[in-house]
């Protein structure tokens, strides 16, 4: 479903070049639920934005659903984002001027879907996340957990094959976070591929597979010496 080989991403500013990702390799199979963890600044968000075609990369290869994406133009990338990918952001990113119904409708409109089908999909998605009764509410009138569920409904409405979530529970308390995770698990059971970035080891543990990123590279937790150093240091701090 999602395969990156020797991928690199360099951010260039006038003074410095930052390698956000380097020799980055990952292979997420269709139907997998992968949790991505790693320290702050390690490149998790960068990986997700490239995976979701929000950004281009500097080197290497990226095959999405069997297609090499570096050759695609802007319109083709928009179309893939719209049809194959669902995004869930840490900050929810609902459009404040639109009510819940209209927010969920946004990606469907860009797909040029007819009104009755749109309506049906929106109401189905809102029912899935348990917010059908809030369709006319505005984001500001909802709790954080509810807003994130609207965002999930928005990602779901288009029936994407791949769901990308960047710390979807980062702004939520434990109970709301658990609710959101249960929703993601349910979506996963229905066949979607999910890649979720999280800081929370408990949530990460519930995924099928964990991928750890350090310094822009995927590392094997068991073997990487840097992890041991980090781990030891952390352990030392706790002891001290």
């Amino acid at each position, binding site marked *: 479903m999602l395969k990156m080989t020797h991928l690199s991403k360099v951010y260039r500013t006038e003074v410095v070049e930052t390698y956000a990702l380097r020799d980055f390799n990952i292979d997420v199979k269709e139907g997998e639920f992968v949790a991505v963890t790693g320290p702050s600044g390690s490149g998790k968000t960068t990986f997700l934005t490239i995976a979701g075609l929000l950004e281009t990369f500097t080197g290497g290869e990226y095959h999405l659903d069997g297609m090499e994406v570096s050759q695609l133009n802007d319109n083709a990338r928009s179309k893939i*984002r719209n049809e194959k990918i669902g995004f869930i952001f840490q900050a929810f990113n609902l459009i404040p001027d639109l009510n819940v119904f209209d927010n969920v409708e946004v990606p469907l409109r*860009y797909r040029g879907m007819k009104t009755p089908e749109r309506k049906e999909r929106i109401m189905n998605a809102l029912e899935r996340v348990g917010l059908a009764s809030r369709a006319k509410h505005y984001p500001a009138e909802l709790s954080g957990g509810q807003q994130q569920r609207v965002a999930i409904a928005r990602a779901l409405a288009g029936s994407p094959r791949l769901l990308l979530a960047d710390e979807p529970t980062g702004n939520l308390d434990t109970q709301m976070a658990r609710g959101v995770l249960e929703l993601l698990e349910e979506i996963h059971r229905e066949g979607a591929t999910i890649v979720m970035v999280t800081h929370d080891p408990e949530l990460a543990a519930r995924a099928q597979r964990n991928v750890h990123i350090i310094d822009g590279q995927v590392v094997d937790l068991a073997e990487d010496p840097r992890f041991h150093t980090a781990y030891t240091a952390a352990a030392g701090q706790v002891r001290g």
Partner: protein
Amino acid sequence: MQIRPILATLKHHKAGTLLIALQIALTLAIVCNALFIIHQRLAHLSQPTGLDESHLLVIQNQWANKPTKGDISSLLADDLATLRKVPGVANAYATDGYPLSSGGITYGIGHSPDKLNFVSNTAIYFADENALPTLGLKLVAGRNFRSDEIGEIGGRDKIAPQVLIITSELARRLFPGESAVGKMAYVSDKPSIIIGVVERMQTPYVDSAMAQWSDCSTLMPFHQLVTPTNYVVRAQPGQLDDVAKRVRAALYAANRLRVISPEDGVKTFAQVRAQAYKSDRGMAILMASISVILLAITAAGIVGLTSFWVGQRRKQIGVRRALGATRHDILSYFLTENLLIGVGGVLLGGVLALGLNLWLMKQFEMARLAPGYVLAGVVTLLLLGQCAVLAPALRASNVPPVEATRSV
């Protein structure tokens, strides 16, 4: 399209939306009335006098020493002879006034001596047998004056001409459907015979209040023995400027006891025309300037507000891009948004335009605004809006999708 959600969004930005819509409405109301006024003034300005203007110049001559009526008779004859001898002069005659001279005599002309029962107003021009060839007036029926028909009158004498030459417009009013030549008409208590009809000769007045009879003029066969006297001089082709330079010197050389104003004693007809329509032209320029300024302010307002909105919505533009909007989708979002505000503005503006016109009609006797002007204004403002919004909308369409992941 995405009209419903755009309207929903605008509901949350009422102040800016209303401000721009109102600005568009006011601009439309003022601009289409201004356009209308400009067009009317220009039409007014381009009304033909019926004269062969490009070959004419006029001289205003003031006699010194208060000459008597008898003196003026010979002074006039001498001057006309002098003028005809100036190289380049084709013809000349003396008169009290001429089209666009803005002052003159007005009579009622009708079928009976009853002064209250006239058919039409008419401007009166004193003329002799040289008037028609000098002015280049086109005789469409009858004949010109003969030299033996030209009489002399003083400033206060009663006027009772035996023969008249009138314009075709006046002839149509007096004798609709018939030839006026040979018929009688009254400008005094005695009847006058119409001997000729000229195609066209405008009155001295450009005032819109007298526009209804601006082509109703009458030529009377008199030399008016008053001071000042106007001479109308026809130059030979290509000689007008030279003649204009020569005539003053020639007249002074023949007789020093006169005043021909150094500023405007000698004027080409082009100068006469420019002077007569100065206020029309000024009004047209003023209206055009106001329109341009208003349009510029409205465009600037749209650019400003849209730029502000684009800045404010960067994040949600990124989110839309992330959710599958193409650049074109974003561009069309802002163009559509502007169009919706614009349509609201022009609907209101159309009503305001008609209201303003009604008020102008009442206050300044303006004509009723033709719907074409409102339509032209509507199209102009909607296009202006789309042009103004283009730059900020393009900027919006260049917001990268990754903007969605950036924290605020």
